[in-house]
């Protein structure tokens, strides 16, 4: 059963990867890479169970974290090219 989940994960990784390669544009790629990152977190967790090594899970926590930091960073830093005024601020969320 766990191996089937692993295969599903690898298939999803490849699908997300194809989207990340095709783009088009920055946002499609970030979306695909973010999805891919979630899959790697699950990959590490599932691999820990598949090979009987639960200490892999520590690494899964780290992946979840760095994946989020990278996504926030790319959104924040790519928006420097078109600095829009902050007056619209606060309406979001």
């Amino acid at each position, binding site marked *: 059963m766990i191996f089937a989940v692993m295969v599903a994960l690898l298939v999803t990784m490849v699908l997300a990867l194809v989207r990340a390669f095709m783009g088009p544009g920055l946002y499609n790629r*970030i979306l695909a890479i973010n999805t891919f990152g979630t899959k790697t977190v699950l990959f590490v967790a599932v691999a820990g169970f598949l090979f009987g090594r639960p200490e892999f899970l520590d690494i899964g926590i780290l992946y*979840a974290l760095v994946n989020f930091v990278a996504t926030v960073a790319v959104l924040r830093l790519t928006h420097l090219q078109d600095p829009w005024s902050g007056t619209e601020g606060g309406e979001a969320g």
Partner: protein
Amino acid sequence: MSVIEVLSGVLLAAGALALVSGGVGLLRFPDFYTRTHAASVTDPAGAGLILIGLLLRVDAWDTAVRLLIILLFLTLTSPTATHILAHAARRDGVPMWQEGDRRR
């Protein structure tokens, strides 16, 4: 096979199905926003189902705590990331797909 194992198997299968359907959606949907929909719905759902499925197979409490922490992190960060992503794309003027448009 105990009830717990069957339940875990069902959860894992459901999670795997959610993940693959999300992957197909990410690849096949016509524009960025629909793809966001595919990814953002299936990502936490699949992750949650799989992690809970694994949680039912745990034999040590510290492993269970780690799984729960991963679950917490993913359920918080993954929707947030897709949310700000879609938001930033909208502000950037990424066009929305309409009936009859070419796929982008």
